[in-house]
């Protein structure tokens, strides 16, 4: 268990958002508003959502992740995920997110992929 912390880092045209702690019914709204403000209201072309340090995920948190993916893609921009481990990964997989979004095993891999794509 842990309070949600969200941080961002800009890498060229990519915005990396790192989510640490519990993404649940209590914190999903904060996550939604923060990502929308940082990414949708910006000019970044690509969003790397690093969920690798999520400690708890419920259906509300899952919905907030799915909602961000839909909105980013609807805006014609790209989003990729670094998934959490354990049961949070199972929760993520129930929504078959892997079909809608590229999933990378690490943030490094997600960023390297982008460097190659841009080359």
């Amino acid at each position, binding site marked *: 268990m842990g309070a949600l912390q969200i941080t961002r880092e800009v890498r060229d045209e990519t915005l990396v958002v790192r989510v640490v702690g519990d993404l649940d019914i209590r914190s999903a709204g904060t996550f939604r508003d923060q990502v929308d403000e940082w990414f949708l209201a910006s000019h970044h072309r690509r969003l790397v959502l690093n969920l690798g340090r999520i400690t708890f995920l419920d259906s509300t948190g899952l919905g907030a992740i799915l909602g961000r993916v839909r909105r980013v893609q609807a805006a014609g921009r790209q989003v990729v995920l670094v998934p959490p481990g354990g*049961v949070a990964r199972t*929760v993520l997989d129930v929504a078959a997110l892997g079909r809608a979004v590229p999933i990378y095993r690490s943030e490094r891999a997600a960023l390297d992929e982008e460097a190659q794509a841009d080359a």
Partner: protein
Amino acid sequence: MPDAVQGPAPVDNRLLVEVPSLPANAELCRVAVAVFAAALPFTLGEIEQLKVAVAEAVGNCVLHAYPDEPGRVALRARFDGGAVIVEVEDWGLGIADVALARQPSYTTSTDPDHVGLGFAFMEQFTDALEVVSAPGRGTLVRMRKRPADGGHSRRTGSGAAAPGETAPQGPSGEP
């Protein structure tokens, strides 16, 4: 000769918590059940699964039973034959068609972020799920979970898969 020694069998313990249906109490309830259930030989992954199931049940009270203002939620837990039984009860709006509400992806919400998977997770992460509800009277959710190693369980997933490992796909469907 036993290869492992377990602690004493759980005593006839019981848990009763009554809280208002605030989002923060979904965490309080899931943590309370996790501590309570740890008297049985659950893996950490199984405890995490139980926490998600409880969080979904309490989350339904917050979002659906009492959509306008917080109401009363009762959380009960007990042991039965090596399993833990968890009940989450509210006296809120109730559900007119329980079978429909239990369908994966069914939601009454107009919020586009609501995925309607609460019951699907309760079902996937426990061994048995019962839902009793009447419109205007409230809802009782009863879940049962047994440690996979504590018997001949059909469940093999510990839920503690490392990142990148394949996890079980999709909700388990209607019973």
